[in-house]
């Protein structure tokens, strides 16, 4: 135990888990005390989803040093496959919780497999080229899912990628309906499942970071050639991180999809990918707790500014720029620390004064 507390990484991880568990307990308590309004209750699941997305992207961006602009694409694959699985298992698994779990695992596996398939060729690229290819992948995914039809009728299950609406027979019901997206989804997602997802994501990512492999991955990030020269199989490690990240994003996507009664492919566009990236960079690259906090705060921020009406998005933009400058710019940081010292100095002087 003592050894555990002396280990800096272990201590940070412990704090991360503690913060998440405490936040969950606090939310549950407030919820049962009836202190949460509809808006707040509505935020709980998407916040868990975005935390998982931010943490899994941080594995890729912060730990591996790869820029991905297509994270929402994996989220979308997870969402649509999760929705399909949940709808098809409706009669096989009557228990909602189990069905949700299956859907999330299925969504994760689908996204992970797609991650692997595109990872094989794509991971030959680096830096901005990898970024543009992940962006391209997100666009392709969105375009294909926008023309995807799936549904059941008397004859069973049908699925097609088609340029016009796939006809269904007697008693047909669409699960995924082309540009309308998935509609009539049975909402299975719960805050508890969101919490479990966040814990699972943290567990996977933190363990990977602190394992021997994690150190290898960081070595690859800091100097690929040097890492290669000491016998680290660079491609294998990058691939592993890429697939794990896609898998987790897929799980989060499935939870997201099953939290709403309808979801369209356009949700998983470039802007959503960028938003997740903003969470990661603002929380600190490689800083997992930072991702957790920044995803939470930045998700609520535009919602908390609703009273500003038409001005809220412009204010959000300004806040984003200012926060970036405050957290990253050496000059602004220096200025702030001087100002803080001054403020503290006045405070101290006053204190001295009152003592006299």
């Amino acid at each position, binding site marked *: 135990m003592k050894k555990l507390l002396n280990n800096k990484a272990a201590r940070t991880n412990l704090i991360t888990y503690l913060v998440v568990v405490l936040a969950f307990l606090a939310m549950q308590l407030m919820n049962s005390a009836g202190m949460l309004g509809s808006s707040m209750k509505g935020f709980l699941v998407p916040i868990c989803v975005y935390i998982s997305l931010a943490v899994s992207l941080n594995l890729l*961006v912060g730990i591996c040093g790869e*820029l991905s602009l297509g994270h929402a694409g994996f989220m979308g694959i997870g969402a649509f496959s999760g929705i399909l699985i949940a709808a098809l298992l409706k009669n096989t698994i009557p228990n909602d919780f189990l069905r949700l779990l299956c859907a999330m695992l299925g969504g994760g596996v689908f996204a992970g497999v797609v991650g692997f398939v595109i990872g094989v*060729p*794509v991971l*030959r*690229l680096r830096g*901005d*080229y990898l*970024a*543009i*290819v992940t*962006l*391209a*992948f997100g*666009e*392709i995914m*969105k*375009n*294909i899912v926008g*023309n995807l039809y799936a549904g059941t009728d008397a004859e069973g299950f049908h699925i097609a990628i088609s*340029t016009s609406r796939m006809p269904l027979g007697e008693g047909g019901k669409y699960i995924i309906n082309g540009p309308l997206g998935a509609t009539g989804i049975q909402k299975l997602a719960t805050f508890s499942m969101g919490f479990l997802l966040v814990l699972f994501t943290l567990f996977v990512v933190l363990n990977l970071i602190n394992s021997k492999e994690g150190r290898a991955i960081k070595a690859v990030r800091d*100097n*690929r*050639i*040097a890492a290669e*020269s000491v016998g680290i199989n660079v491609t294998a490690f990058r691939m592993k991180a890429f697939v794990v990240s896609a898998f987790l994003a897929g799980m989060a996507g499935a939870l997201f999809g099953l939290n709403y009664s309808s979801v369209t492919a356009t949700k998983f566009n*470039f802007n959503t990918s*960028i938003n997740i*990236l*903003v969470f990661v*960079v*603002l929380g600190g*690259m490689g800083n997992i707790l930072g991702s957790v906090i920044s995803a939470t705060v930045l998700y609520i921020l535009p919602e908390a500014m609703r009273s500003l009406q*038409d*001005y809220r*998005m*412009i204010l*959000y*933009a*300004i806040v*984003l*720029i200012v926060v*970036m*400058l405050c957290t*990253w*710019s*050496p*000059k*602004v940081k220096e200025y702030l620390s001087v100002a803080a010292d001054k403020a503290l100095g006045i405070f101290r002087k006053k204190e001295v004064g009152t003592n006299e």
Partner: protein
Amino acid sequence: MRILQYLINGISIGSVYAIIALGYTMVYGIAKMLNFAHGDVIMVGAYISFCVTSYLGLPAWAGVLAAVAVCTVLGVVIEGLAYKPLRGTPSLAVLITAIGVSYFLQNAAQLIWSSSPKNFSSIVTMKPISMAGGKLVITGEVLLTVAACILVMVGLTLFTGKTRTGKAMRAVSEDRDAAQLMGINVNRTISLTFAIGSALAAIAGVLLCSTVPTLQPTTGSMPGIRAFTAAVFGGIGSIPGAMLGGILLGIIETFSKAYLSTQFSDAIVFSVLIIILLVKPAGLLGRQMQEKV
């Protein structure tokens, strides 16, 4: 004849991508940052030109000049306020700030000009050239945009190759620290890069809206992303590469719509892009950097 018409359509939109991509690549090559707000500076340029010609009733050239002036100032101000303080930090930090700037410009444009679309009247007054009994039509906009692209490309190549300031830019692009040691004012060079990039954005905005007349606060964002794709496609940082990438992207897009599938053209375009990048990982005309420890 039909294939020729599609080719011209492709060149038409491709040359618009190309001129946007030139600005992207210029800023990327020298400041080493992905300026995701570039598309929105284009939108501002188009609005300025629209206001000057429609509200003040001035001729088209005055609109272009005003757009160039305003965008240059805007570019320098953005650079000074939002990007300069982050010099030397990871490029991702600057990327996120650029996204913030992009949100800001879009929302500010909505507040100033409202989100109602405006119809931009083309600055070209020339009648379209009609050949083969109306089966093949070449519009003045295509000719102008292609000419502007070539002019800008040659101009930028000469500028960075021959002039003192241009050479300084290349030096900064190669090695910022070494350039500083050689007495080059790195900050001023980068600011100048942004000024030129933004002036190009203004011209691109006018040409984009002459080809595609609908003007809204979100007008710049999708063409901006396409142009960024084109710039990477051609080899980001390479000036002729941006031009080639833009025009090829436009042609691929139009051909995939015309001969394969309109519904899946986005998927086709981006698949082709991925395949080409796998074969040529540094883009069509990009330099393969030798990595050293």
